[in-house]
């Protein structure tokens, strides 16, 4: 993209956010925003600034009956596709159901087919298919349970009375990373990271809670897709206090009991 075009469109972002552009200009800005993270970030900031302005509206309480009216008006119509961009991968259990439903449908289909084909060889093949599909359904069910319990733990950390939030500063090749940790000595640790470079080949990212110079592994940073990563874990050691350092290092696959690699992210309370 040319810098002239970028500058020109950058100058239209306020009007775009205020809905003041002509449709063809709006379409042009839309197109540019797909490829320009700088303008997308600027637009995000403008939208947040406008939300601040909205906040100056005089506080008027909605009537108590409005909530019931709003909820009663919801229809079953839904718009697809699902959105793709969140900074945190927090999938609810229900979102996993289509997978399970597909697996279940496969099982039913295979079962019906089995009744139609009486030859033993066919039955043997179908039986193997059923076993594979059953294993897949079990695997999906386990993933659903894992996601569900992670989400519950993340929420309990975020809402804990003793939760403290800390920024993790990027180091080495991760200086552009944006990362935060939410630490509750009683509930556990939530780490979210964005713009994190891929770990060196054959390495993974491991998270450490360090108190009085003693690091304890909190687990591996998961979901490292598109530079994003997340970890939710219970407190790695009982009795750990509120004043800790949280660090992320690169380590061999599976992680180690003590850190050996380069520190990529770190922050302290």
């Amino acid at each position, binding site marked *: 993209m040319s810098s002239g075009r970028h500058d020109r469109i950058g100058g239209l972002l306020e009007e775009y956010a205020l809905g003041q552009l002509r449709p063809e200009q709006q379409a042009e800005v839309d197109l540019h925003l797909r490829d320009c993270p700088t303008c997308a970030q600027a637009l995000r900031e403008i939208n947040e600034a406008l939300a601040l302005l909205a906040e100056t509206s005089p506080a008027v309480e909605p009537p108590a009956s409005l909530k019931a009216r709003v*909820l009663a008006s919801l229809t079953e119509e839904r718009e697809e596709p699902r959105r793709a961009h969140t900074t945190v991968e927090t999938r609810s259990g229900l979102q996993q159901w289509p997978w399970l439903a597909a697996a279940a449908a496969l099982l039913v289909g295979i079962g019906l087919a089995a009744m139609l084909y009486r030859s033993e060889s066919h039955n043997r093949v179908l039986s193997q298919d059923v076993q594979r599909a059953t294993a897949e359904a079990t695997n999906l069910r386990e993933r659903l349970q894992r996601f569900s319990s992670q989400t519950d733990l993340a929420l309990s950390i975020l809402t804990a009375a003793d939760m403290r939030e800390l920024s993790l500063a990027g180091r080495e090749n991760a200086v552009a990373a944006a990362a935060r940790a939410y630490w509750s000595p009683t509930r556990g640790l939530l780490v979210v990271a964005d713009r994190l470079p891929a770990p060196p080949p054959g390495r993974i990212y491991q998270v450490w809670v360090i108190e009085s110079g003693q690091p304890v592994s909190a687990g591996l940073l998961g979901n490292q897709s598109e530079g994003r990563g997340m970890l939710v874990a219970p407190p790695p050691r009982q009795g750990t206090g509120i004043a800790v350092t949280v660090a992320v290092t690169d380590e061999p696959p599976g992680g180690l009991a003590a850190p050996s690699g380069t520190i990529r992210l770190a922050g302290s309370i």
Partner: protein
Amino acid sequence: MLQGEAATTIDLHLINRVAGGERDAIAELYDRHGARVYALAHRILGNSTDAEDVVQDVFSQAWRKAATYRADRGSVVAWLLVITRTRALDRVRARKPSEQREQRLDDCDSPALASKAAPPADELIAREEADRVRAAVMQLPLDQRQALELAYFDGLSQTEIAAKLQTPLGTVKTRIRTALATLRRSFHA
């Protein structure tokens, strides 16, 4: 900023659940932001009846279109408020010209005037935050604030603002841009 990182993360989680069709999640989203949405709709429309209709439209749209929410374009609150403003301004524009002034002045039926019990602590914190935000907006030079408010709350184009304020178009553009830049800095503070 409008809300902390933790609150933003909770909203992201909620909107994901809404996209997954969980009614509990949209109810919780209403509990967290319904009052903000209502206040903005009321400010733009000037009466409770239309404001309530807009709140219903906004959460109905959030329910149907949660899957299209883009976190890289702004927070969930900012997204809800964009929908609110658009819906409310559509209603203003749909009114007959004779109704417009009348409705804007019909502002005396506000339930906010009713006395309320002592608010819980989180509401006090939210109010404190709202006061801080309001102070940041009030610190904008009057000409900048006026141009920005006409654009945002009244939905006027920059050309219309220039005519209304009898100010060159370029000046209006600069005022709005400078005001937003100042607010963006306060958002980072």
